[in-house]
């Protein structure tokens, strides 16, 4: 497929065609496309448009205007591109670009956005949600108060509660009107209807859930007596609230202690002496997360050695897998070896097994007291493969070598076979020894093709979450570190621990780390790619 695209580009672009030539080419294009092609195109675009129209209608129905506009615009653009007689490059590129935006750009931009917020435990939603949640939690049922059977009643659109007290007397009241005694009709012990009010059936109650959730009937003229609320429409309880929200001042007041919590721009109501009322809400915090990522003393100390180990892990993994793969490729490239095919298949096997599965199996085999390696291979030795800091590092590297060398083996084998034999012959005739042939001729030629893959492999291993998470989960734990990191944690597993383990999540900080990791990997890759270019020029 790629060759056809190349052909296309080369035949279409270089000699700038005149306007007439272009028109002729377009007519020829359309003519040779044929009626079937046109129909096919129409059907596909028709389906696409139908889906787009449906999506826009649904989205508009739910007030998602921005997304609706984006969907409509994209659909219009796609139609324009494919109905146009020109726009040949766009016809090739559009689908890819749409996927790129959807699955890469959006994710990156969103991660970037999260990195500048305080999104995490306690800062999860909007301010209104935080306020309503705080108010709901601050309701305290008045001690030893009874359960009141209630009927929800309606008078000209105003909801009220018809309350039966334990003595069997009926009261009615609304949000503004405290409870007052009335003569009511009783069904058993419960007042069910009163003159001037319509009693709501359960279905009506459900239909007006929002109003009923807000309904708090003052128990008496004294607000300190609390208010009667019904959570389920059939029983009510007497509550007092411990918090008072002043919307104008933006403060929460704890009425039992008198403490005033105000919104000081940190995403939570905070008292004068620094106590926060949680839940708070999500705000943007600028570069705070990035500053914290490198300066927080609790994080800084582990960050240094985790970063060092991440570089060591990625570099050693690339080097070890490359040299083992290269060595095996050279060995199996030798015509004198018999049964090379079978050996090669065996070599590929570790690559064919999903890496997370192999990592789990290795973790089992490396168990100190029960693992296959210690028990069977070493006859009952107790080598702390995964529990000693240095041994664990070695084990991780070994397992990653096992997982990674088949790839390098494949790549090197292909590259070696593309080096002409004549070069080796010429060198041998000139009297070069095998090592010199390898070092001075084969390796440089090999690196031209393989170096970009080595860079890619470095980037992959820098973020090799699977192997670390499945094999050691970063362990053994560093009991001196203030956060739960271990001696084999790499940056990405540390970020995972910050964001997703324990009871406090910090998505903002984790996103900031992700961006830092992205920058590190990108910078190293760019520098390395520059250097490979010079390698190419040498040859």
């Amino acid at each position, binding site marked *: 497929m790629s060759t056809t695209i190349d052909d296309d580009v080369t035949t279409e672009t270089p000699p700038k065609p005149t306007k007439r030539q272009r028109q002729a080419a377009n007519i020829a294009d359309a003519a040779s496309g044929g009626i079937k092609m046109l129909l096919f195109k129409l059907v596909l675009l028709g389906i696409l448009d139908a889906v787009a129209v449906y999506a826009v209608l649904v989205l508009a129905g739910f007030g998602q205007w921005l997304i609706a506009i984006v969907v409509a615009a994209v659909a219009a653009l796609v139609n324009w591109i494919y109905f146009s007689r020109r726009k040949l490059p766009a016809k090739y590129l559009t689908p890819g670009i749409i996927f790129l935006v959807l699955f890469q750009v959006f994710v990156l931009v969103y991660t970037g956005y999260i990195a500048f917020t305080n999104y995490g*435990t306690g800062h999860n939603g909007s301010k209104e949600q935080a306020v309503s949640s705080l108010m709901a939690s601050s309701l305290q049922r008045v001690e030893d108060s009874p359960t009141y059977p209630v009927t929800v009643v309606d008078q000209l659109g105003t909801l009220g509660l018809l309350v039966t007290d334990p003595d069997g007397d009926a009261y009615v009241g609304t949000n503004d009107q405290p409870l007052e005694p009335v003569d009511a009709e009783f069904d058993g012990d419960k007042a069910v209807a009163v003159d001037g009010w319509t009693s709501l059936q359960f279905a009506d109650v459900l239909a007006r859930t929002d109003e009923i959730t807000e309904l708090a009937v003052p128990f008496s003229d004294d607000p300190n007596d609390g208010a009667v609320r019904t959570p389920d429409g059939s029983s009510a309880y007497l509550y007092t609230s411990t918090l008072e929200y002043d919307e104008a001042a933006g403060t929460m007041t704890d009425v039992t202690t008198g403490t005033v919590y105000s919104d000081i721009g940190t995403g939570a109501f905070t008292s004068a002496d620094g106590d926060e009322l949680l839940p708070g809400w999500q705000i943007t915090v600028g570069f705070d997360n990035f500053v914290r990522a490198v300066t927080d003393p609790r994080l800084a100390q582990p960050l240094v050695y985790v970063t060092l180990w991440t570089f060591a892990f990625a570099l050693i993994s690339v080097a070890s897998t490359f040299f083992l793969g290269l060595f095996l490729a050279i060995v199996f490239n030798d015509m004198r070896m018999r049964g090379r095919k079978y050996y090669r298949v065996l070599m590929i096997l570790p690559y064919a097994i999903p890496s997370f599965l192999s990592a789990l199996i290795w973790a089992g085999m490396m168990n100190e007291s029960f693992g296959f390696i210690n028990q069977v291979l070493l006859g009952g030795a107790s080598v702390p493969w995964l529990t000693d800091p240095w041994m664990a590092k070695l084990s991780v590297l070994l397992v990653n070598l096992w997982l990674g060398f088949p790839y390098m083996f494949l790549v090197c084998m292909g590259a070696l076979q593309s080096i002409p034999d004549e070069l080796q012959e010429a060198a041998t005739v000139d009297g070069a020894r095998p090592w010199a042939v390898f070092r001075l001729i084969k390796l440089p030629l090999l690196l031209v093709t393989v170096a970009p893959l080595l860079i890619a492999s470095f980037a992959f291993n820098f973020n090799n979450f699977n192997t670390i998470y499945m094999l050691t989960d970063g362990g053994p734990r560093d009991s001196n570190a203030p956060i739960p990191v271990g001696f084999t944690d790499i940056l990405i597993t540390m970020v995972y621990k910050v964001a997703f383990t324990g009871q406090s999540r910090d998505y903002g900080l984790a996103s900031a780390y992700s961006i830092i990791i992205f920058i590190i990997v990108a910078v190293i890759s760019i520098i390395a790619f520059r250097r490979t270019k010079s390698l190419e020029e040498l040859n």
Partner: protein
Amino acid sequence: MRVNKKSLLAAGAVAVIATLGLASCSAGDSGSDGEASSSGTLTVWVDAERVDALKGAAEAYTEKTGVEVELVGKDNADIKDDFIQQVPTGKGPDITMGAHDWLGELSTNGVVAPIELGDSAGDYLPVAIDASTYEGTTYMLPYAVENIAVLRNADLVPEAATSFDDMIAKGQAAGLAHPFVVEQGAEGNPYHLYPFQTAFGAPVFGTNDQGYDSTDLQLGNAGGEQFAAWLSAQGKNGTGNFNTDIDGDIAKQAFLDGTAAFWLTGPWNVGAAIDGGINVAIDTVPSPTGEAAAPFAGVKGFFISSESKNKVAANDFLVNYLGTEDVQLELFKAGNILPALSAAAETASSDPIIEGFAAVGAEAVPMPAIPAMGSVWQYWGIAEADIINGADPTATWQKLTSDVQAAIDAK
């Protein structure tokens, strides 16, 4: 070349359609959720394994009240995070199934609404009500109580042990080198060691009238250090009864193979033991001291979303319907763990296995749900693992206490 271009074009068109299809799917999803909220449908997230158990109850409730109950089976491991993330967007469920130790996190994130159990609160096991309450407010309708106990291979050791040492002695008399297994791991497993710790009188937190008090860390009291010394004596350099190389699978295998006669684990492993042909008896946790060894109780229940548009129906469904004995027994049949409603618990206890766990559960204390507990978990297991592996018990325990205190203060 023509053909290639056409197929490319076709592929491109298909891709675009698929993309928009995806977009419209997600739009469709949010649409149905929105509808659900406005037309009196309750969306309930349920542990995928318990969907069938709730199905009957949901249908019966629909018949009784006309409210549709839509059960969504979810992987238990994802429910908490998905709930916390989706409730603020307005697209979460009305009700979710969960465990009481999520409570601190859910409440700190403001995603749960309080539940008023009213007079029915007295009908539940006290430990279930304690566990459902956070800072004095009830947030969860409890349906099951779960705790660990000792599974005994009654063919190897016919009599229950009276103390920890008695258990080891009885097992060794039956010819077993390490008769007792408990799940640990490189980072320890404090949940499974907690009964022994409480036997030394060292709970994690003290309590006040609001429940656990995060300012009163009891972990490091004198009992804690005695426990550490005992743990060290039972570890690598002592009797070897505790071993951090034994994980859940190895412990299970040892019990199924008959190389261990006692296994400290939860009801979730009883099925495997019975299927393995073991004559299982359930015992209380043998205490290393004279005091009772109280495990943590985990209470399962249902939470109402703070952003639910159907709070009235949700409250009615939970309190007045799922809180009834029939429904609790139905759920019990699916999960085989003790119902939280006292009457249902009594009925369920006719099964000797359940009765055994219930007897241990009578001594159990709810696992603290306060956020400070997160700081404890972080250091607790690793310190215990270090002690088992021969670290100085007193120094390690003191460091554990100061690390936890520092982490709590930093919050």
